[in-house]
């Protein structure tokens, strides 16, 4: 159950939670259930086969008992012809065989392989009746009688047929048992092999399903650490346990972003505070011009010609305009604005930024030189925030140089849709041991009250959010150069993260 009382509906949350749920618990349960069903099927199959084999063995033994009795009868029969004995025994054995067959008839009909019941019964009956025909005849008579030959031939023929048929049936049943035994032996082996591959597949599947979102989470944290606060978007088809984490990350991102924004805002106001001396200077110049012109008019109105009147009034108007522009430039930078990504003329933006810092630099006796390539392509960005970045860099440079120092602000186009802006000063430089730390929040080498150590950290966040990079090169005592690389055009759409904002008239 989710509670989002802090914020109204957010698309990214709906995206994440709008997917059908297929969590890992369910997947694991499903996997094990499949295993279980398979094992049950195999076990039941084995049990059934084994019980069939058992019954087959019974059938075989029935056939063998039958065969044994017939063969016994045939031996007695032979004795009878040789010595005239054992005819009764032969009859008894035959009767036994008949009995076995009759007793098990129903059972055999069901269990045995198809067998020529009619023929076997007929042959057995014929054999039996032939034997019976011998009984009333004494051996002497028999030996001479012509009929003997016929009876003997019949006996041999039917006896042999019954034996052959029964033997063939027994052999066939044996064969069948061997075959089934073979199957019973092999199936578990095949099952094991199948199980082996199934397990590999399931293991791979499950670990992929775990690893992939984990990897994505790692990637998210990395980009977030770099200051890109784009919310996490659904990457998988189904909702699962990781969705909880992703939703939490998105909530954290909104928190981070609003904090970052207030940090940016407060640092901006600090920068404005630093600019006051310069702004006062700058503003007091046109005010002074207005004051002098107005007083001159007042004092010498009658002595002055009409042209001179016009000239002074024109001056007053122009200087008022100038004051307004100064105030406007400052207010434009200071005004608390909703962050809006829009197409920007970087050259204009850098000029305005330089203007903000220009008088501050003059107060300190530092020259700011602009070297901006003409016709730079427009970039998408937040005007105030980018101004703030370049102003931070310029103010840092101002702190680093002495009187007579020089600050260069350069911008040029690069291949593969990048624009480079460099802020270089010939000041104190940065010692190599602190170089890795200067972008850290609250890292400063300036005395308390002069630096908060947030300038570069805030700038880094802003540039990351614009899909760009900020780098530094410095040599102690010689120079520092901060290089801001910003994307423009095609590469930028993917890199920047303004999808949350409804674009206000931007195109």
């Amino acid at each position, binding site marked *: 159950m989710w509670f989002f009382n802090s914020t109204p509906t957010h698309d990214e949350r709906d995206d994440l939670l709008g997917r059908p749920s297929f969590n890992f618990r369910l997947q694991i349960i499903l996997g094990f259930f499949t295993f279980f069903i398979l094992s049950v099927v195999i076990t039941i199959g084995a049990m059934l086969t084994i019980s069939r084999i058992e019954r087959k063995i019974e059938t075989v033994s029935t056939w063998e008992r039958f065969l044994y009795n017939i063969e016994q009868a045939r031996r007695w029969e032979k004795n009878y012809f040789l010595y005239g004995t054992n005819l009764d025994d032969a009859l008894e054995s035959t009767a036994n065989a008949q009995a076995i067959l009759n007793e098990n008839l129903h059972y055999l009909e069901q269990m045995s392989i198809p067998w020529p019941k009619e023929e076997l019964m007929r042959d057995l009956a014929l054999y039996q009746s032939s034997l019976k025909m011998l009984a009333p005849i004494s051996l002497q008579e028999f030996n001479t009688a012509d009929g003997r030959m016929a009876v003997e031939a019949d006996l041999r023929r039917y006896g042999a047929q019954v034996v052959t048929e029964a033997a063939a049936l027994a052999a066939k049943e044996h064969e069948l048992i061997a075959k089934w035994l073979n199957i019973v032996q092999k199936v578990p082996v095949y099952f094991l092999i199948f199980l082996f591959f199934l397990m590999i597949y399931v293991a791979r599947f499950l670990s992929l399903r775990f690893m992939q979102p984990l990897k994505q989470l790692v990637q998210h944290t990395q980009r977030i650490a770099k200051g890109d606060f784009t919310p996490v978007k659904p990457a998988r088809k189904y909702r699962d346990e990781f969705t909880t984490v992703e939703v939490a990350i998105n909530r954290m991102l909104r928190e981070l972003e609003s904090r970052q924004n207030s940090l940016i805002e407060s640092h901006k106001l600090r920068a404005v505070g630093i600019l006051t001396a310069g702004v006062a200077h700058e503003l007091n*110049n046109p005010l002074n011009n*207005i004051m002098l012109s107005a007083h001159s008019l007042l004092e010498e109105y009658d002595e002055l010609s009409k042209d001179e009147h016009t000239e002074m009034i024109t001056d007053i108007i122009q200087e008022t305009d100038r004051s307004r522009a100064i105030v406007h430039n400052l207010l434009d930078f200071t005004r608390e604005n909703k962050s809006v990504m829009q197409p920007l003329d970087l050259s204009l933006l850098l000029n305005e930024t330089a203007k903000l810092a220009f008088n501050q630099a003059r107060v300190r006796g530092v020259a700011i030189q602009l070297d901006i390539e003409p016709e730079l392509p427009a970039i998408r960005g937040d005007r105030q925030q980018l101004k703030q970045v370049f102003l931070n860099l310029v103010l840092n440079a101002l702190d680093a140089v002495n009187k007579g120092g020089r600050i260069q602000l350069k911008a040029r186009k690069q291949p593969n849709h990048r624009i480079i802006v460099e802020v270089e000063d010939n000041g104190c430089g940065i010692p190599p041991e602190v170089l890795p730390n200067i972008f850290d929040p609250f890292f400063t080498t300036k005395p308390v009250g002069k630096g908060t150590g947030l300038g570069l950290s805030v700038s880094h966040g802003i540039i990351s959010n614009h899909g760009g990079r900020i780098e530094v090169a410095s040599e102690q005592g010689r120079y520092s150069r901060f290089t801001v690389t910003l994307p423009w055009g095609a590469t930028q759409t993917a890199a920047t993260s303004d999808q949350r904002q409804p674009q206000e008239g931007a195109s």
Partner: protein
Amino acid sequence: MKRPTVLLIDDEPIVGQRLKGTLEKLGCEVDVFQDPGKALDRIREKGFDIIVTDVMMPDVNGIQILEAAKAVNADAKVIIITGFATSDLARECMEKGAFDMIAKPFKPSDLRSMVVRAATEMGFTDIQER
């Protein structure tokens, strides 16, 4: 009767245009420069009695003018115009011997009375506001 020579330096042209006449009416001989570099050369060429200079200008600032003027003529009176006076700047100017400071925006009469005061201190008697 000798008239005091006044040098007025400000990179804002209107300042010179509006103040030249009013200072001349006081009875001064006024030179106006927008380029502080050229003004420096002029100072070295010809010492001025009173120098009125803006402090913040490109290349050469008011402090350098002050130093140069004092080097040429230790008695010269230098009036510093500032856009935004910090106590540091005020102290530096006074230590270096500036006569007075005036903050923008100012009225012509403010500067006039300051120039009159400077001229009077230098011994020019017939300089005064009408």
